[in-house]
């Protein structure tokens, strides 16, 4: 298995009048698992299609192992893509679907059969070879689509929301299976998702995209703890933003505002040391499984927090957020946590 690195250099893609990708530069190290994360319509699929050769570049360059692929047609690029809709060939059986990429490479019938059998084993679908693809369940089709991409030992694997059509249980299963398989084979992988939990749990590096641009490239922990700006923070599940009065509590900072997630904020009766404390009135309280999600109002602003007990609407309480859960943002809306913490520093195991 050869594994390779991918570099994008100021990749710009335009469709009609719209600039879909705007000067994307990215370096994907060999053997890494990179997630493209971002809201719907931000250009994730387009970036993947550009890498596979289906979206012509307006300008910029892309290279596999420092050899430019920008001018190559899709079939010469050696990138294996798993489409969101699976795109299995309906006129072929499962085994034929898996064998076709090998046939295209001029591999003889006997070794084709051997490789297909091995992949079917790997995917836990050994007895499905003769079945028509129309008769498979969504999860099985997903695995066949993955197998069809893996059977050619691709240097680069591109996955477009491969798990989004599946129900939660299968998704969790496949998530770890996919990650294991990727580690085991050491394939450089780029996966599109708009599910932040999926990106956080699978990726070595997350590329956060926003309207055709890269907003942030970071390891999952860094992205979670220090989103680059307020919009990125919102996307990463930071629901609350609070403006500070200077000198309030122990959090000395020149931040214009702090962001925090509701699950790190709690409802107390008395101010706590080492916390940001705010007097607030309970607006609403709803059961959320392990605790209660409480909506409170303070100084005319709404915040949400967690509480282990239900709160009565109208009750006077204190909103407490531990200092280390606060993410400081400057007046320009950018995160004040130093940038070197945000760059991907995690080494690959």
């Amino acid at each position, binding site marked *: 298995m050869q594994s390779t690195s991918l570099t994008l250099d100021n990749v710009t893609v335009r469709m009609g009048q719209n600039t879909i990708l705007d000067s994307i530069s990215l370096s994907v190290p060999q053997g890494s698992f990179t997630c493209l994360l971002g809201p719907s319509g931000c250009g994730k699929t387009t970036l993947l299609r550009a890498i596979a050769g289906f979206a012509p570049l307006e300008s910029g360059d892309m290279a596999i192992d420092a050899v430019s692929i920008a001018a190559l047609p899709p079939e010469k690029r050696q990138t*294996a*893509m798993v489409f969101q809709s699976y795109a299995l060939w309906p*006129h072929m059986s499962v085994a034929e679907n898996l064998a076709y990429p090998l046939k295209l490479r001029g591999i003889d019938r006997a070794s084709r059969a051997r490789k297909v059998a091995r992949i079917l084993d790997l995917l836990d679908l050994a007895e499905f070879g003769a079945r028509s693809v129309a008769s498979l369940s969504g999860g099985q089709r997903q695995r066949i689509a993955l197998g069809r991409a893996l059977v050619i030992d691709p240097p680069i694997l591109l996955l477009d929301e491969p798990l989004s059509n599946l129900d939660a249980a299968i998704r969790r299963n496949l998530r770890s299976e996919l990650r294991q398989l990727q580690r085991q084979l050491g394939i450089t992988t780029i996966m599109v998702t708009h599910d932040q939990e999926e990106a956080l749990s699978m990726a070595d590096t997350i590329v956060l995209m926003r309207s055709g641009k890269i907003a942030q490239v970071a390891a999952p922990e860094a992205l979670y703890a220090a989103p680059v700006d307020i919009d990125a923070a919102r996307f990463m599940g930071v629901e609350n933003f609070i403006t500070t009065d200077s000198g309030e509590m122990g959090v000395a900072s020149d931040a214009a505002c702090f962001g925090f997630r509701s699950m790190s904020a709690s409802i107390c009766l008395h101010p706590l040391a080492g916390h940001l404390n705010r007097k607030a009135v309970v607006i609403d309280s709803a059961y959320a499984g392990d605790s209660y999600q409480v909506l409170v109002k303070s100084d005319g602003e709404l915040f949400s927090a967690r509480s282990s007990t239900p709160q009565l609407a109208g009750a006077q309480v204190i909103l407490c957020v531990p200092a280390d859960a606060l993410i400081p943002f400057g007046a320009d809306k950018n995160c004040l946590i130093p940038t070197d913490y945000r760059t991907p520093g995690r080494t690959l195991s």
Partner: protein
Amino acid sequence: MSLSNASRVSRSPLQNASHTKWYSVALVAPALAAIVFLFAVPLIRSVVTAFIDADGGWTLENISRAVEFYGRDVVFTIVIAVLSLAVIAAISIAIAGYLTLGSTPWAVAALRWLYRWPLFIPFIVAGQTARSFLARNGLMNSMLMEAGLLEPVAAQSFLDWRGLVMTFAWKQVPFVTLLLAGAMASLDRATIESARNLGANRLRCLFEIVLPQVRPTLFVGLILSLVTIMSVLSVPMMIIAGTPNMMTTMMAHRVTYYGDYAVANALGLFSYLLTALVAWFYLRSTLEKEAGK
């Protein structure tokens, strides 16, 4: 309460059922009558006439006379039809394939605009145009001579079986292409892209991914073209003088010169049989496919 409600609701359609049945029969009656009187009755009549002699008795005489007089024309018709369909299939696949997989936008747009024109030209005009284009000193030969590709002495008329095949193809290719390109456009594009992504060039993509998925549409287009080829009278009459010629001209000849409907109908029977045979093969293959699913 909900139970009694349900039963009350379900009763009314039952009460109305016979009423509704008559109503729908009345609605469909005009169409049904048109089919019976305009298509089914004449068809059955012409088939029956092929087996009836001058005195009104049953006979196979007409059939054997048709074979004896026109056997060569029947074979000629079959050969022309097969050749034409092969040419039509090849060109339609090429055009529709380029429309689907072509990567030069202006070329695709130009082709899309151009290829349909023959659809709007009547067969008789096509026959007339073919005559002046394919004759010994027609437009095609003069163009070839002007381009230096043809010696004047070597010029020959194409107004024979070749002209017939060319004219049928020219007239039917747009129709089959229209069907085929439509079917290809409605394929899931991702199936094409995934094939290219995994290493199929455009040609292999066309023959191994696109075409197998639109094969039924291609068959429908070719069967309808066969029926057209079997029924056009003007083109073979204008392009070919003498025999052998298509069955249609022979039938027309039999009727206009001899008033011999019986033998003409026997010839017609061969046309039905030929198209029915092809249609049967098509239906069988689609049914097999349905059953396989």
